[in-house]
């Protein structure tokens, strides 16, 4: 298992001006923010990019106002949600749903699943390499056994069994957290 900084540790380091910590914080939450805007709110890519940059700009500006360092994750989730709704209400886009027509129940369900996905992602970071990269390439990047084997200099014939073993490790990691 890999020793990964907690969210609170990362926030504390960011506050002291640690650029590496900021890089890690952005990396840690980037997929979550992106998924909220594109999957839960179905924003077009240009709007999603604007929301993405605005979320991290506000996080950077207001990090000192965070009541508890552990609260960074729900704060980023709520901030992203609010900016997505603002974007929809601005009416500056063509899309399938206006803000007033949003089925917020469905969005809440989607956000809850993305929150679970972020928990699994945190578990993946804790499992470390090479499992992190193998599972990321296969499940998140949709790469073939051959592409993964080529990228990691592993025989393609061993990738399936490695994925299975890594899933088992990740399962154990997640069970240890519950």
């Amino acid at each position, binding site marked *: 298992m890999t020793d990964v900084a907690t969210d609170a540790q990362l926030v504390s380091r960011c506050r002291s001006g640690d650029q590496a910590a900021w890089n890690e914080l952005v*990396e840690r939450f*980037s997929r979550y923010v*992106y998924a909220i805007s594109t*999957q839960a709110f179905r924003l077009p890519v240009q709007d999603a*990019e604007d929301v*993405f940059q605005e979320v991290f700009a506000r996080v950077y500006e207001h990090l000192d106002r965070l009541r508890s360092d552990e609260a960074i994750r729900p704060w980023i989730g709520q901030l992203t949600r609010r900016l997505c709704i603002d974007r929809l209400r601005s009416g500056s886009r063509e899309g399938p749903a206006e803000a007033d027509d949003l089925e917020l129940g469905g969005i809440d369900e989607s956000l809850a*699943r993305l929150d679970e996905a972020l928990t699994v*992602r945190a578990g993946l970071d804790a499992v470390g390499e090479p499992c992190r990269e193998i*599972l990321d390439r296969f499940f998140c990047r949709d790469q073939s056994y051959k592409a993964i084997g080529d990228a990691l200099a592993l025989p393609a014939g061993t990738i399936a069994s490695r994925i299975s073993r890594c899933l088992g490790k990740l399962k154990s990691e997640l069970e240890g957290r*519950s």
Partner: protein
Amino acid sequence: MNGYDEERIAALLRLLPPVPSGWVRAAQELPQARVEIAALVARAEEDAAYRARVVADLEAALEAEGIAPTPSVVAALRTRLEAD
């Protein structure tokens, strides 16, 4: 999360695909962009003609300084200039 069967873990992993190229780096460069914006604003305070050029086209001014003019960076520059 209740129950950690591998099928469910795989489905949850698929929900978080990579972010398009460049987005993460732009967000990571925000602290440096803030420093560069501060330098740009300081120069604008000293040089009225430069300030006029910056105000006329914020994006071009940022690009000239090698700063990516993302909407949040442009907004930050505008706020700083208005505050002066």
